[in-house]
């Protein structure tokens, strides 16, 4: 089983549209895992049924039992996150500020504070319209994606892919360069980097590739909106040549991307010229992975 992870340091490069296109091309032979939990948009194109709903717990948050509390204020004293304000004369935890370090709970003289795991969102195992399944999550407000959540999404995807004998797992990876993207990359057979020839596109590509390199995973690159700036496009191509990254495709600037999305379709179901480019790159990915 091959695990293909699609990432892009910067947002708005078309990563999710391209990933969803691969999902359509891979059909029933492939399982989808959406690890871009902060902006999980893939469901808009793949029509999951939100079945298999499961609560997801991560991180901890302190809670003060007001019955036991003697209002000594020691907890607020040790808290470095200003998370224990006095509300209506009582020491109270502000869950949005609490980092869950557990220091307050440890030093409370009357053990009035418990640190408990918090429900941060929901995890779904859905059937999608391409005849396969997708693992995806929805986070509550102020809750952060984590290595744990990404690992859970990927683990569930892997177990299901094994059970249903799929050949591929397709992962829509997390943004940024922190723990979630590390967890997205971990275990991958091939990484697809989606970028665009803009100053920020180039900048973020180089930053996120540092991580990919650390993991020694083979990578390919898709340059979206490739024709909006020839100079930056060359810059990207020089970079990927130097790093032995496979150039998978150069996709011209095309508003059909958005038009397709507006109709709830992927680009390969909408525009025959773009379809050819994306089919070609998918074939390359399958060979390299």
């Amino acid at each position, binding site marked *: 089983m091959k695990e293909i992870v699609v990432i892009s340091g910067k947002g708005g490069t078309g990563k999710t549209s391209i990933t969803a296109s691969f999902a359509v091309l891979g059909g029933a032979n492939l399982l989808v895992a959406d690890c871009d939990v902060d902006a999980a948009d893939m469901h808009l194109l793949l029509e999951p049924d939100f079945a298999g709903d499961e609560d997801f717990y*991560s*991180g901890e948050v302190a809670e003060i039992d007001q019955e036991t509390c003697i209002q000594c204020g020691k907890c607020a004293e040790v808290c470095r996150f200003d998370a224990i304000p006095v509300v209506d004369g009582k020491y109270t935890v502000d869950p949005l500020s609490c980092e869950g370090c557990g220091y307050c709970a440890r030093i409370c003289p009357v053990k009035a504070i418990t640190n408990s795991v918090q429900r941060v969102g929901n995890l779904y195992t859905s059937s999608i319209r391409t005849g396969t399944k997708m693992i995806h999550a929805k986070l509550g407000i102020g809750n952060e994606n*984590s*290595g*744990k*959540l990404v*690992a*859970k999404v990927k*683990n569930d995807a892997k177990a299901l892919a094994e059970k249903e004998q799929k050949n591929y797992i397709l992962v829509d990876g997390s943004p940024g360069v922190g*723990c979630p993207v*590390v*967890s997205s*990359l*971990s*275990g*991958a*057979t091939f990484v697809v980097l989606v970028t665009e020839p803009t100053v920020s596109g180039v900048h973020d590509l180089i930053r996120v590739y540092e991580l990919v390199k*650390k*993991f*020694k*995973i083979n990578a390919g690159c898709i340059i979206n909106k490739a024709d909006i700036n020839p100079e930056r496009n060359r810059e990207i191509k020089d970079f990927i040549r130097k790093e032995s990254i496979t150039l998978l495709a150069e996709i011209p600037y095309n508003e059909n991307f958005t038009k397709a999305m507006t109709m709830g379709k992927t680009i390969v179901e909408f525009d025959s010229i773009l379809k050819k480019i994306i089919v070609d790159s998918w074939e390359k990915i399958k060979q390299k992975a």
Partner: protein
Amino acid sequence: MKIIFTAKGTEWDSPMDPRFGRTEYFFIYDEDSKKIETYDNRAIENEAHGAGPKTSQKLAEYGADILITGNGPGGNAAAVLQQVGIKVITGAGDMTVKEAYEAFKNGTLS
């Protein structure tokens, strides 16, 4: 020589776990005594962050010479492993434990 594999199970035929920090099991093989040990690391699932260092710490207890894994380890785990003084071999993510061992012996992993 004592070798640790990151694995998805506890048998020679179990597939390797390509991940280091969040590996499901360690499969530990002592070439001299031919003894096999395994360690169930699945509780790591509950760690939101810092799986790498935590797993490294456990690994250190086995006093192995070589670690064979898939992609990893990331920066933090690498720092611990360096401290432990274990040699890290990657690129065995697609294999079974047995295949990984054979590939290592044949010198096709590095």
